[in-house]
């Protein structure tokens, strides 16, 4: 059985990736990062809207989650790419987006938008749970000191909520890395599209899909390691027995405390 596998192809795909593949890998990474950033921002705005005194903002926030969590991601991707321009009657998704420093392909833009909109609905729930997890006394103490709700949220509640938000956010980004493969369906040349093209000309699914699966595994594994590191630091500064992440960063670059100034140890 295994004898039928052309191991040379797998070896080449993994250890001597060509430029086309590396560009596709880069596309996967920046779509995932951009969509996740968009998702976090949308989730934060929606989570704050949910706490608003204005009822229409709360309704809007609820409708957003209902819609984007209740429909398939693939449908959303197709809808954004093919449907949005027709729906609004003007070109929201151009063929190419000129961003000054570089051009962004319209399909990539649509993909980031759809993945980000979908992610935002999940992030709203995660951020909401994070804010709810912070003791109500924190907001009261901040307000008793004369802070407005907005200032208290920014300075007191959200920094604490971020510790609760980071672990599930990490899981979301793990899923995001893999979900980017869906945008191949609207013609984005990312990692999976690269594998699919090779397969369709060679009909060697095991080699090409197997190799790309390993690449996804590499991305998610690297991310898992980064996430573990972030969580360890957050937990340590929460206990107060280790300097915070920011303090470490500062220490590392400060001429007084940096390793190069401490001398031999």
């Amino acid at each position: 059985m295994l004898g039928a596998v052309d191991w040379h192809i797998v070896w080449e795909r993994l250890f001597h990736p060509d430029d086309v593949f590396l560009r596709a890998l880069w596309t996967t990474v920046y779509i995932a990062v951009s969509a996740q950033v968009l998702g976090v921002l949308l989730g934060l705005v929606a989570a704050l809207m949910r706490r608003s005194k204005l009822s229409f903002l709360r309704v809007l926030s609820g409708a957003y989650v209902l819609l984007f969590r209740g429909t398939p991601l693939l449908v959303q991707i197709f809808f954004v790419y093919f449907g949005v321009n027709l729906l609004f009657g003007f070109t929201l998704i151009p063929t190419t987006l000129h961003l000054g420093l570089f051009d962004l392909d319209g399909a990539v833009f649509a993909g980031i938008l759809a993945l980000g909109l979908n992610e935002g609905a999940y992030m709203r729930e995660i951020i909401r749970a994070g804010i709810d997890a912070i003791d109500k006394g924190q907001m009261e103490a901040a307000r008793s000191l004369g802070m407005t709700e907005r200032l208290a949220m920014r300075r007191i509640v959200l920094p604490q909520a971020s510790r609760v938000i980071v672990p599930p956010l990490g899981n979301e980004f793990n899923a995001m890395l893999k979900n980017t493969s869906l945008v191949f369906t609207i013609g984005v040349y990312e990692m999976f599209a690269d594998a699919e093209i090779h397969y369709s000309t060679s009909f060697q699914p095991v080699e090409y899909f197997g190799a790309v699966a390993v690449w996804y595994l590499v991305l998610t594994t690297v991310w898992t390691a980064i996430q573990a590191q972030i969580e360890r630091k957050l937990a340590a500064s929460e206990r107060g027995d280790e300097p915070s992440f920011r303090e470490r960063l500062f220490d590392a670059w400060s001429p007084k405390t940096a390793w190069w100034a401490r001398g031999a140890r």
Partner: protein
Amino acid sequence: MVGTRSSLIPEAAQAAKAVAVRAVDVHKRFGRLHVLKGVDLEVGRGDSICVIGPSGSGKSTFLRCVNHLEKIDGGRIEVNGHLIGYRERGGKLVEDSEKNIARQRAEIGMVFQRFNLFPHKTALGNVIEAPIRVRGVSEKLAVKTGEELLARVGLADKRDVYPGKLSGGQQQRVAIARALAMNPALMLFDEPTSALDPEMIGEVLEVMKALAREGMTMIVVTHEMGFAREAADRVAMMDDGRIIEEGTPEHFFLAPVEERTKQFLSKIL
């Protein structure tokens, strides 16, 4: 509405003293529960008053109304002549803007039962946060004042320690320093020693007594009769949403009038 008020201070002397807090017929409902049923209270400037009473009598709720952490459903509360939380418009009271309410709260310090220190900030970070962010004080000045305040509550050496590493008594003292950093005209204490181990109550009470001696206007909701006896100028007894008796500590401990007060005091003394 109001029960017997047997203040031992003569009317004339009361009038001469500037009034820091004036609460008139304050009502508060939580849904169908009528928690405050017409609270009347005056606190003279520089006085410290202890509010005692059984749990559920509305002591804490009333305190939280004074800085508008709770809205009131009737009556009015003034601090240094300013209506708290509301504006008068056409003879009616309407809730003030968030910004104005925040500005009023900045002048009123509050200390909570559960400390409510900001766990992501050091002791000093807790103290300097509001002066810098709310008042716009320079960081240098805020740190200087903050260090002085920490020294005043006996915690100069804990400036860089996070609340999680402090004992309950130390946390509460940081919380007092944090409130004082805003240079408030009035301090509210909501059962400040109830969450503390017995051996830590003393250190917090010492700080509060010193504050009272220095002439800070204070409203203290507490079960600590020691504080009431030694540091309070007046004591008010609350029961079932009303202040039923009010007077000097001597009056309370030697000759309480109301039957309900006698009962309550006999249980806790």
